[in-house]
């Protein structure tokens, strides 16, 4: 049965609350009938009134409180209503939660998940539209995870809460909530694509038009950019006969380079897409890591597609100009091909 991303996450929360008495859900406006600003937590407070805690507007306070619960044996899931508000809890994330396990020489675990909607394209303006996860990528002690419609978002969340003993920042792109889940098989067809999914708790999905035999460009995208990259790949194939492989990681930090390098062996050209601002972003980190590890695979300078280094405007003409669009991915792929040191032989 087809489900969308929102329902997949909601079902996973129901499942973990019913299976595991250690799970508690903490955040603002969670109670039914409202059920959370984006309704990911709908129905939970009715079924589990003692373990769904609606909070005052105290992001730092309830994140810290959940950390204390996690250290003492519970498995809290914190919802930050808009990812922009994560900055209110930044001291907790960087100076407290991410440090405890290592700083205390492995004496404690902080199995805490912070889930939060990120991203724009909904006209919410400068403080309710950002993708701020780049600021926490590389923060010691944290796993940063982003589901996409090609993953099973609920399964990723379940693993983050139940199986991961370290804190996880779980980034949900908000335009993705209504999208149908099209989970890629570990090896097999997914629509027009051949799909491969790496093993592990937070896998990477790779999509190929051509059974992974050859391709022109490796297009890496996560979260809400994944389907945009897919659409760009389809458009480029139809119009230009350029074959892109779309690589969609769910683990942003640490980055699993293997599936990306695997694709680059076939393409030699890399375009990395993210919705956050470009400077010092996830793409910069990924490209640095790829260059250091496998420079010989690169036939063209790796390129980034990202938001302009500006606040996100409210009005749609400006918001569209600031955030990365399908056309930006398209252009970047064409540039990568044009810059290639080797003539494409296809």
């Amino acid at each position, binding site marked *: 049965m087809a489900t969308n991303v929102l329902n997949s996450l909601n079902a996973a929360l129901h499942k973990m609350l019913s299976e595991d008495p250690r799970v508690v859900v903490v955040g603002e406006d969670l109670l039914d009938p409202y059920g959370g600003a984006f309704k990911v937590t709908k129905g939970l407070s009715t079924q589990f009134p003692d373990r769904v805690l609606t909070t005052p507007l105290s992001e730092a306070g309830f994140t*810290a409180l959940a950390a204390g619960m996690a250290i003492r044996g519970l498995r809290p899931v914190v919802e930050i209503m808009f990812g922009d508000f994560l900055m209110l809890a930044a001291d*907790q994330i960087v100076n407290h939660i991410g440090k405890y396990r290592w700083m205390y020489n492995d004496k404690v675990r902080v199995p805490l998940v912070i889930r939060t909607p990120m991203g724009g394209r909904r006209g919410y303006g400068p403080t309710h539209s950002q993708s701020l996860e780049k600021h926490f990528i590389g923060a010691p002690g944290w796993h940063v995870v982003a589901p996409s419609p090609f993953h099973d978002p609920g399964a990723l969340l379940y693993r983050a809460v139940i199986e991961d003993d370290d804190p996880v920042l779980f980034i949900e792109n908000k335009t993705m909530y209504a999208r149908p889940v099209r989970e890629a098989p570990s090896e097999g067809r997914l629509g027009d694509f051949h799909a491969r999914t790496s093993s592990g708790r937070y896998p990477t999905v790779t999509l190929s038009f051509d059974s992974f035999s050859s391709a022109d460009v490796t297009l890496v995208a996560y979260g809400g950019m994944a389907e945009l990259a897919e659409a760009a790949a389809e458009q480029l194939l139809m119009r230009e006969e350029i074959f892109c492989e779309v690589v969609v990681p769910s683990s942003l930090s640490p980055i699993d380079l293997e599936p990306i390098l695997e694709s680059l062996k076939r393409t030699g050209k890399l375009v990395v897409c993210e919705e956050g601002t470009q400077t010092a972003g996830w793409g910069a980190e990924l490209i640095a890591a790829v260059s*250091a590890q496998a420079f010989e695979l690169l036939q063209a300078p790796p390129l980034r597609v990202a938001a302009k280094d500006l606040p996100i405007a409210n009005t749609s003409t400006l918001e569209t100009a600031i955030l990365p669009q399908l056309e930006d991915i398209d252009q970047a792929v064409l540039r990568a091909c044009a810059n290639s040191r080797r003539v494409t032989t296809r």
Partner: protein
Amino acid sequence: MPIPQEAHLNSPHLNNQDSIREHLYAQMVLIRRFEERVLDLFAAGELFGTTHCYIGQEANAVGIINHLEKRDIIFSSHRCHGHFLARTGKADLLMAELMGRATGLVGGRGGSQHICYENFYSNGVQGGIVPTATGMALAEKMLRTGAIATVFMGDGTLGEGLVYEAFNLASLWSAPILFVIENNRWSQSTPVEKQLAGSMLARGQAFGIESGEIDSTDAEELYDYFDPIIKKVRREQRPHLEVIQTYRLCHHSKSDDMRPEEEIEHYRQNEPLPKLRSRLSPEVAERLDQEAHTKVEQAVTWARQQPFPSPSTFGAGATAAEFRQAESHRTAP
């Protein structure tokens, strides 16, 4: 009143006022000798970084912590040696940690401000520990362990907004936690009058938290005062706040003291150790002083013999794979 049998990890079974008095003094003099020795070791270049001493405030730690049970949680701050030693007596493990040794409390990773031992925790950024301790108290309540939490903060920490988020949450959700504000009158180099408006007590009361205040450096008085408070937190499963008017006789961290000498001298007249010592027989006092001295010297000797941690232990435990990955990112093939 007797100290509960499980109250203190190292405590003898005390059942009369004399033995309580001796116990409180023994703990205070251990804290004092330990920190004096730490300052010597800094001056001698044997310790790294910085440290925040508790000299002058020892009566607070022993007055409160001896009422806590082994299962209870303590969350302390940058100024945590006194709380830790009152709780555990483990001068050797703390000294090894301050010396950065592998066998220190947290293997040299944390140092003076960031320690963890059983149910004792500390962290060095102000404010953030208060809601975390609140969450710990709530977790114990949800898990029905019967444990309560105590969190220590100073007057300076009251400037952090997170403290008030914690007060609100603790009151709203009835966390079994004791908030202790040790007003030592100086936030680093800033006197309390220049950094704090309004009343400390009213800060707790405004959130519906029963709050009290005691102006004392008398360990026995503090010990008697906190007994019913801690029982009440455990019984009623509600937060409680106490302000202790105290004074820090030492600098904030090492060598940064610019306070008026007359003021320090004024408070020195009232310091906790001589006050309690004068109630002991000279023989007992001398013996306890000597025992503390010996314990601290043994801790120094032991800690000096301990190895430094090797960078090869970076990735101990489940994070090893990530550290390997981090390393591989740094090195080109």
